């Protein structure tokens, strides 16, 4: 082998080869590299560069860290002493560094000796065979040919892949080499957080294939040449057949051995899930996007439980999400114990929170109401004057037939009752009129206390609101305009206004600081709507109170309770002289000038006129316009007048009751009593007219409640309800819409009674007025006669 005098390279002499001699046993550390160069082994064209490559290789091996090596002049001299040093075909432009898409693989080798970087770039370029032009192709072709002709070694065989592939590898190799040159930097945290600028640029266009056209336009300049050439070729083809110049020869291309590669991916876990979506489900999901997410414990639990259940193929779930939760929970309990305990802990928390939640309280409240409704259904129905539903009695299996009969009977009974209730007026009822006790309100708090006054507001059997007050309550009234305001009068004279919408014990308004407050117990309170024609205001509601200090005062709610005196009740002597006796007769030592007022009643039509009853037994007719004088005085009672009531239908007539056991009916024009009743020897505490009938009124005295119907009899009460011994009835109040009567007693109970089978006619008010007028006239006449 010719030895080239290469200096300062160690193993180079071994590697020299000149000319087409094939190299057989060339083993390189990097087979890629070797392959590259091997491609040139045995190339027919004198590739002196190859030898140069070969020579360079040991350089590569030994000096891997070297980026640049000095260019050494290599000379190759053949056996004859001829300098056959291959001349480089590529002269690297010293100014243009890397990006020259220049021709040859050979040219790279020239720069091998120099920078590796440039070689790197050149290698890059070699990826574009098209760029290298025709020569390259021939080189490629030649290289492949050479490959085939060379007897294969293992390494060669490996490298029978596309040259480009090798070249890529080569580039990567050089890449590596370049990269390794830079010292390794330790990436610190700050570096990680530093903003790194990344510039995105387009790579240069890489053409992988360029097939220039072989068609030339007829009009071009070369057209003539091409046509001539084509003609020559045609003739050549024609002559080819029998021509000796052309020999047919077979060639075979060796196909590369195929290589199979199998790839397997990880198992893809599939899960089926189905949900039946209902209308509300869709609505909820749609709206849930607007709401905030709910990371409650329970949902977390749900998710953990879901995760713990092994994923099997589930059947399509038909139910909604809540049942899912349930089934999951139950299966969970079967499977995991750890999570079970977790659930228990959470549940304990939950149960407490459930008990405390507002919703629970509300639900309890409703439940109670519903229960009550159930219990009192028949009575409530009677109260509301609805047909009473009788429950069909549950029949035992033996008594099945009998049970049926019973049912029929009860149905008949119901029918009968209905008939009775409807046809009361026409039929002669065999059942006498009676008071049926529906239910009673009682409370532990009021046990033993007098029920002093009743005001309408339906309550449950247990108190809806309890307002504790420091003093005894002597009067209550609900406001008409603002039905949530309750005015309360106390035993010590103060008046307080509560708002029943709130539960607090503190009244909204209090008169305890007012200088004009009452000094004695407030015996009656009433809200009156008064025409304020003079001032031009609308009907204003004022609170009128009468108390034992002898004053009737009017309270207006402006900023706090404002009080005006409507009237001072003066004492008048028993002996009647004139009307409106303001002057006191001398000679009688009176303790006070004021007469304690017990009750008052405003005229239903003319709210300027009212009646006031005093402890003396006198009833004074007064007007709001005069606060000094009485318009009239009615004398008849001998004891304190406890209650006055105007007839709601006939506005001339009013009732009064007093401690002298008597109930007196008066006519407005007449200062003498018209009719008086002394049914018992007990103090009459309360009277009230029935709102339905002009002739019916109720009387409550110590021992019994009486319902009088003047239409029927003026001597005896229609209904008498005797109280339990020891209990005094203290107040009565009629229910406005129904035939019920509320009676309060000294035991703190309020009983609701239904007036049944009352012989009342359902006539209009006018007729009522006429009725009582007639009756009274009749009675009067009767008396006269």
């Amino acid at each position, binding site marked *: 082998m010719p030895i080239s005098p290469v200096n300062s390279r160690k193993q180079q002499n071994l590697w020299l080869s000149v000319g087409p001699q094939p190299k057989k046993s060339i083993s390189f550390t990097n087979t890629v590299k070797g392959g590259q160069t091997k491609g040139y082994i045995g190339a027919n064209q004198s590739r002196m560069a190859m030898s140069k490559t070969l020579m360079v290789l040991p350089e590569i091996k030994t000096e891997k860290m070297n980026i640049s090596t000095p260019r050494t002049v290599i000379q190759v001299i053949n056996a004859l002493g001829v300098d056959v040093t291959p001349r480089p075909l590529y002269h690297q432009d010293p100014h243009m560094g890397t990006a020259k898409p220049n021709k040859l693989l050979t040219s790279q080798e020239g720069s091998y000796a120099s920078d590796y970087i440039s070689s790197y770039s050149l290698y890059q370029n070699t990826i574009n065979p098209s760029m290298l032009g025709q020569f390259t192709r021939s080189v490629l072709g030649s290289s492949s040919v050479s490959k085939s002709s060379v007897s294969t070694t293992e390494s060669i065989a490996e490298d029978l892949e596309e040259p480009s592939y090798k070249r890529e590898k080569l580039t990567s190799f050089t890449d590596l080499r370049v990269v390794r040159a830079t010292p390794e930097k330790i990436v610190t945290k700050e570096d990680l957080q530093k903003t790194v600028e990344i510039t995105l640029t387009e790579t240069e266009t890489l053409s992988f294939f360029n097939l220039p056209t072989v068609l030339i336009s007829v009009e071009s300049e070369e057209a003539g040449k091409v046509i001539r050439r084509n003609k020559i070729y045609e003739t050549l083809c024609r002559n080819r057949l029998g021509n000796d110049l052309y020999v047919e020869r077979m060639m075979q291309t060796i196909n590369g051995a195929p290589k199979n590669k199998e790839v397997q991916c990880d198992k893809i876990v599939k899960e089926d899930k189905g949900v039946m979506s*209902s*209308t*509300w489900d*869709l*609505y*909820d999901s749609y709206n849930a996007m607007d709401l905030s997410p709910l990371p409650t414990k*329970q949902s977390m639990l749900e998710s953990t439980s879901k995760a713990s259940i092994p994923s099997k193929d589930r059947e399509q779930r038909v*139910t*909604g999400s*809540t*049942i899912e*939760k*349930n089934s999951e*929970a139950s299966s969970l309990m079967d499977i995991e114990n750890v999570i079970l305990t977790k*659930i228990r802990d959470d*549940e304990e928390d*939950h*149960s407490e929170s*459930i*008990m*405390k*939640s507002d*919703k*629970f*309280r509300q*639900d*309890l*409240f*409703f*439940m*109670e109401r*519903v*229960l*009550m409704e*159930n*219990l009192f*259904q028949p009575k409530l129905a009677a109260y509301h004057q609805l047909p009473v539903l009788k*429950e069909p*009695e*549950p029949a035992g299996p033996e008594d099945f037939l009998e049970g049926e009969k019973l049912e029929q009977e009860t149905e008949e009974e119901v029918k009968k009752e209905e008939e009775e209730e409807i046809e009361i007026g026409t039929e002669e009822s065999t059942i006498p009129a009676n008071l049926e006790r529906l239910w009673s309100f009682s409370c532990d708090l009021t046990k033993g206390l007098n029920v002093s006054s009743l005001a309408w507001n339906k309550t449950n059997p*247990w108190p809806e609101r309890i307002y504790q007050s420091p003093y005894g309550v002597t009067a209550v009234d609900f406001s008409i305009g603002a039905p949530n305001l309750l005015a309360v009068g106390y035993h010590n004279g103060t008046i307080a206004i509560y708002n029943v919408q709130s539960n607090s014990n503190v009244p909204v308004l209090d008169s305890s600081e007012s200088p004009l407050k009452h000094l004695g117990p407030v015996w009656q309170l009433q809200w009156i709507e008064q025409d304020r024609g003079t001032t031009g205001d609308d009907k204003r509601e004022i609170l009128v109170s009468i108390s034992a200090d002898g004053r009737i005062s009017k309270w207006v709610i402006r900023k706090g309770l404002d009080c005006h005196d409507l009237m001072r009740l003066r004492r008048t002597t028993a002996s009647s002289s004139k009307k409106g006796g303001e002057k006191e007769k001398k000679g009688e030592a009176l303790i006070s000038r004021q007469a304690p007022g017990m009750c008052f009643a405003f005229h239903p039509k003319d709210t300027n006129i009212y009646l006031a009853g005093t402890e003396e037994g006198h009833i004074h007719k007064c007007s709001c316009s005069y606060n000094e004088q009485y318009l009239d005085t009615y004398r008849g009672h001998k004891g304190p007048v406890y209650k006055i009531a105007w007839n709601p239908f006939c506005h001339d007539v009013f009732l009064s009751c007093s401690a002298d056991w008597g109930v007196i009916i008066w006519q407005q024009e007449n200062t003498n009593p018209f009719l008086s009743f002394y049914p018992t020897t007990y103090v009459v505490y309360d009277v009230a007219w029935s709102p339905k009938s002009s002739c019916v009124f109720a009387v409550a005295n110590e021992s019994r409640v009486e319902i009088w119907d003047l239409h029927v009899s003026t001597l005896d009460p229609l209904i008498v309800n005797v109280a339990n011994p020891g209990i005094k009835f203290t107040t009565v109040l009629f229910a406005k819409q129904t035939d019920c009567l509320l009676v309060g007693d000294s035991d703190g109970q309020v009983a609701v009674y239904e007036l049944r089978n009352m012989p009342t006619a359902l006539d209009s008010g006018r007729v009522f007025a006429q009725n009582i007028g007639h009756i009274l006239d009749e009675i009067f006449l009767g008396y006269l006669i």
Partner: protein
Amino acid sequence: MAEVEETLKRIQSHKGVIGTMVVNAEGIPIRTTLDNSTTVQYAGLLHQLTVKARSTVRDIDPQNDLTFLRIRSKKHEIMVAPDKEYLLIVIQNPCE
């Protein structure tokens, strides 16, 4: 809290009330006056019924929701106040 307890006691003491139960969403009784097996049975069955009833109500109008459920049978009446977290069940025998 005391108010709630008092109300529950009061409900139980009403005439005709056979039993009162409060069960949570998983069917575990929080408070009950009946024995455990009955409670669990009631809770399970009524829960399903409540869900169905609620689904019915909401299918007709998604903005609506179930507030109270009453089942009247020959022997007694079952009243259920359902909620997301619990069920309040009262069984009453209205006629005696």
